[in-house]
Structure formats: structure tokens, C-alpha cells
């Protein structure tokens, strides 16, 4: 799994950090998303997908890799 984010779209809601704090964070200077684990380990896949599904700005893309 690979994650990409759209910083322009990000509205700083923080849902991704509340759901998957090991994968996402928010920048101190503006609250915009930071990806801590661009290729999250297996045990984070479900939470990562959930974070992407509920992002209010649809700013997180999950790409499945073989």
C-alpha cells in the first residue's frame, strides 16, 4: 500500500491523525497533513483506509501495490 495526499485540498480536520496516528500527522505551522508512513505496514492498512474514506476533503489517496 502507498499513500499520497493533496496538501492543497487538505482542510486540517485531523480525522486521519485521530484514526491512524502512526501513519498521519499535522504540521505544526499550519495543521496540514503530513504522511509519516508513505508505505504503511500491514497492521495499519485498515486504519489507513478508514482515514482515507472519511477525510472530509477527500485529500488522501490509497494506492494498492502488489
Amino acid at each position, binding site marked *: 500500500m502507498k499513500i499520497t495526499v493533496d496538501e492543497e*485540498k487538505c*482542510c*486540517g*480536520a*485531523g*480525522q486521519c*491523525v*485521530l*484514526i491512524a*496516528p502512526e501513519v498521519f*500527522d*499535522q*504540521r*505544526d*505551522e*499550519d*495543521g*496540514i497533513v503530513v504522511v509519516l508512513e508513505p508505505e504503511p505496514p500491514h497492521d495499519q492498512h485498515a486504519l489507513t*483506509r*478508514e482515514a482515507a*474514506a*472519511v477525510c*472530509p*476533503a*477527500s485529500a488522501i489517496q490509497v494506492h494498492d501495490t502488489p
Partner: protein
Amino acid sequence: MSPNEQILQYPFAYETALEPAAEWTELRGTCPVATITLPDGSQAKLLTRYDDVREMLADPRFTRQDLFGGTGNSQGTATTSAAADTSESPLSVPKHGEDHQRWRRLVGKWLTAKRMAALRPQMAAIADQLLDEMTGRGSSADLKAHFAFPLPVYVICGMLGVPAEDRDRFSYWSDNFLNLTRYSAQERQTAVGELVAYMSGHIAAKRAEPTDDLLSALIEESSGEGEALTDGELLSTGVALLVAGHETTANMIGKMVAMLLADRTRWERLLENPSLIRSTVEEALRFDANGGFGLRRFLTEDVEIGVEVLPNGTTVVCAMAAANRDETAFDNAAEMDLARTPNPHLAFGAGPHSCLGQALARTELQVTLEVLLRRLPSLELDIPATELERLEGLLVGGLSEVPVRW
């Protein structure tokens, strides 16, 4: 008669406090763009389907229409929007495009998930203290008055560095901002003036003597170099945070607990499995049938919704609570499923204007459940759920009381 041929009076009437309006299902099915008359007599279009509501809320071209003719600010959400909606000039922060994004990021960085998580111990301490006082008085009480209302007030006052002793005044001002029917234009104007004067005084005091709080931090930045809030933005941001951080979450705490106790198997499930707290909070936000007025958008260009074209100049009301019950977006939408995942509900709006304070609200709601489950596992409603009463006239939906025993 089909709703297509009617002009419906909005907001709709409800038979009971926790159940959705009868109109929603029919409108979603047959009349997704309904014509409604608002309390002021003007006409608008009402959206009730999930996809339509989400798309309209997230459309960067449009922003809220202000209720009282003033310029509003931009933190739209189910819970905070109403408050922000009503701010009048001179209370204005940028509403559009890059200016809005700049403002949002300057304020939003103080409301991140991590910062809110750091406040958890303080929130829990406040909650414990409120429960000490409530349970010290007996074995039944109105949870709204003794817990749901004061908790977010103390939290936002602590964050802003304004004294919680002034909370009765905030309540009056915020009620004035949020109540559609109770106050005259004159009263509203007076209340806005008082709140602006109050906040200006606080900002002046923090300027002279900074303390460790959000207002002081914003002031410090605005006096430095680089991107910062203007003095006017600082004032309206302080006012918006105070009002928005107040009645909205208070009402949601009351409704969430009422929903969980209305069918007590829900409460018992949480007692058995507290790891469901996070998803329960999201489901309570989705399931809340009493979510308030909805968010308005004022169209500045023609927009197609399905087969219909809404002309430039139309006022659109987005009924997030109706959208959150849309069967095409949520399986078994009429069921409250405490484990529902993912739960992309629209209670906080969507897109560039979605609620700026949502991490704060979520954290407060989670802490509420953690503390209540720990302290009062025997909690139950003290009246039948069907006798709970809605607050009338508010932009933010709520219950007038939540009588409980333990």
C-alpha cells in the same frame, strides 16, 4: 400531493425529539431538490441526498449565506457553522479562496488532533469535577445543565484564556447568535456589540500581558513578521471560537447520551467494550436526527444538481442530518451501529469549509463517554425517550433537558 408540487415550511416539524423528520425519506427518494420557505419568509432549495449535500458543501465556488445580512466567517459545520454563520460585520474573516485558506491555516494549526489530544487530561479533570458536583446532589439530575453545557464552556474558556465565571454572559450572547426566533434584530445587534466589546477588552489585556493560551498565541503572531491575522480577524476569530466552541458541543453531548440511553442495550454494549467509543462518537454524529438547520450556500453561478439547474442567486440549504440517513450512502442507515466503519458522515460539513473545530468536538465527545462510562455505569434516562423535548428555534439542534438517574 407529491412534495414536488409543494412549497414546504422549513425547518420541518418533528413528532419526537430523537426521530428524523418524516419528510426526509420521501424527499431523498422523489424530490432531492425541494422548494422550501425559511422562517424569514424567503424561499430556498433544500438538498437531502448524501451525494448532493456533500458536493454542494465541498464546492469551493460557494460559501455560506449570512443570516442577518452581515459578512460571516468560514468554519462551516453542523456544530459550529450556525454560530459562525451569524457573525455580523465587523465580525468578518475571509470567506473565499486563498484568503480563506490563509486564515484557516493560521487558526487551524492551534486546533490540530495532536493539540486536542494533549488537552485530554484537562478535559477529563473538568468532567470528573462536574460529575462530583452533580452526583453530590442526589441520584438524578438534568445532564444537560450539570454536565453537557458546562464542559465545553470550561474547555473553550481555558483554551482562549477567558474566565469561565463569565459563562452566563457567553450563554446569553451565544443564544442570541444561534436562536432564530427568540430575539429582535435590536437585541441581536446589542448582544453582538457586547460580545465584541468583551472580546476586544480581552485581546487588549492579553496584548499587555500575554498568558499561555490560544488568544495570546494568535496575538503574538499577529504582531510579528510574516503571515498573521489582522486585528479585525483576530477579534472575529476570538468571538467565533467562543460562540462556536460552546453551545454546539454542549447540545451534541446531550443528544449523544440521550441516543445511547434511549436504547440502553447501546450503553451496555459500550460498557462491555469501551474500545467502541471512537466509532460510537462518529455514529452519534451521523445518527443525530436533530442536527439543526443545516448549512446554507448562496449560489453565485448556475449549478446542476441531477437533472435540475439551480440558477445563480439561489439560496441552498444542505440538510446534513437527512444526508446522513441516506440508504445509498450508509448500509442500514436507520440503525445506530456503534461499530460502523468507515463513517463518512457530514455532521461537520465537507471540503474546504468543513468544521475547523472538529478535532476539539470529537475529543470532547470521546472524553465525555470515557468519563461517564467509568463514573456512572448505571446511568439511564429518567423519562421515556419519547418525552424528551427539542430546543426550538435554534440553528443548532439540541434537547432542552436530558433527565437522567444513576
